[in-house]
């Protein structure tokens, strides 16, 4: 097949991936959110809500009366959701990891602009903090995609050249974690920020009685808030996919290993969420950059020079 043929094939795969992700990710993400709520309750010695509580919440939000401070906020939220779905589709169809990282960042930016557009002081404060969160985790996320490239260069049987293509993991002799486990640890650290878990839930916490009311979503209500919830479900599925990526190699059977690893990471995040109080943004920024520099930097240096 010529190059054009490959390009068309890749494009079709991404489109199918996006459609599949748009249908499946909200379902999986909703169940994960439900598991989160139940597990958190059990960790606190409570019975907790039904497993499908996040679904009921969103259905209720769509039943609410439509009230919005300005229409453009809804447009931004919809854009954020669309780009999150595109990023997920690129990743799960085996597409380019670097592109996936950029598109999901675009989604975060749209969400930040949505919060700023309301002009509410609480939402603006939340948006400013979210910007700091993006600043904190983005270096590690970029180093993760670069490390993935270098790991495939080291592990692919035909040697020499690496690739950003996620689908390349099926051709590996060993999972990429054997080469880039420090990067994996670094990614686990910033995963807490990305999943909006305590101690890094600065921009919007799921718990009431805090100083910024509800942070970024202060001015979002009804169906807009419902879309934000769905956005988070999709994001969570994608981020857990990144974790799973470290553990897949050889053939599709090893996907089970990836799923198990991702679920274990999710459980760990819930445990951390329930055991740590929120930190100040200064600590978040410094620690996230220190982790990126140490874990990511040393790992890349070793891969490049040894």
């Amino acid at each position, binding site marked *: 097949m010529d190059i054009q043929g490959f390009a068309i094939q890749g494009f079709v795969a991404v489109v199918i991936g996006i459609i599949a992700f748009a249908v499946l990710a909200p379902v999986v993400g909703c169940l994960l959110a439900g598991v989160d709520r139940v597990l958190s309750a059990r960790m606190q010695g409570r*019975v*907790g809500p039904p497993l499908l509580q996040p679904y009921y919440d969103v259905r*209720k939000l769509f039943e*609410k009366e439509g009230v919005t401070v300005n229409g453009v906020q809804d447009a931004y939220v919809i854009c954020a959701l669309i780009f999150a779905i595109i990023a997920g589709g690129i990743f799960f169809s085996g597409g380019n990891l670097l592109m996936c990282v950029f598109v999901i960042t675009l989604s975060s930016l749209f969400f930040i602009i949505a919060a700023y557009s309301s002009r509410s002081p609480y939402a603006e404060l939340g948006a400013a903090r979210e910007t700091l969160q993006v600043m904190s985790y983005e270096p590690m996320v970029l180093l993760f995609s670069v490390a993935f490239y270098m790991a495939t260069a080291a592990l692919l049987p035909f040697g020499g050249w690496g690739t950003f293509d996620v689908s390349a993991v099926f051709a590996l002799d060993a999972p990429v974690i054997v080469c880039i486990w420090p990067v994996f640890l670094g990614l686990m650290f910033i995963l807490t920020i990305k999943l909006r878990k305590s101690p890094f839930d600065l921009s919007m916490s799921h718990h009431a009685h805090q100083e910024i009311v*509800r942070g970024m979503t*202060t001015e979002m209500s009804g169906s807009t808030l419902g879309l934000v919830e769905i956005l988070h479900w999709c994001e969570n599925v994608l981020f857990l996919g990144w974790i799973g990526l470290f553990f897949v190699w050889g053939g599709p059977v090893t996907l089970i290993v990836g799923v198990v690893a991702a679920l274990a990471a999710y459980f760990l995040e819930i445990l951390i969420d329930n055991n740590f109080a929120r930190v100040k943004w200064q600590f978040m920024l410094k620690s996230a950059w220190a982790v990126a520099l140490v874990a990511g930097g040393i790992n890349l240096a070793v891969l490049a020079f040894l």
Partner: protein
Amino acid sequence: MAYSGKSPWVIHYDGSSCNGCDIEVLATLCPGFDGERFGVVNTGNPKHADIFLVTGSVNEQNIDVVRQIYDQMVEPKVVVACGICACSGGIFHDCYNVIGGVDQAIPVDVYAPGCAVRPETLIDAIVAGVAVLDEKAEKLKSEKKGRA
């Protein structure tokens, strides 16, 4: 079917109560009584809330605040007056600055008496409020259909 009743998010405002009822409201949401079994979440943001829990009576100082929070809530919404002061003014009813129960400021759907109101009463009141919430959601839905 209406999903409003399956996910009653509450917001709590302390009017001029002695704090007895506030402590009981928070106790209701704590692990011992676990309001989240019914999907109850304490929001802290009127725009996200479905049920407005008011403790204490309404006075000249707070009547505007109570009305403001109520107005910011999105339909369908329910108001629960928690404690006897919120229901009727309680022992403060003849104070010079007290106007009366919460129903002097905004429409109240459920009255939960008690001094202080017990968490069991509160859970009962919220569950009763949930029925009203479902009713209002259905009404809103049929109105929407009528308009379309």
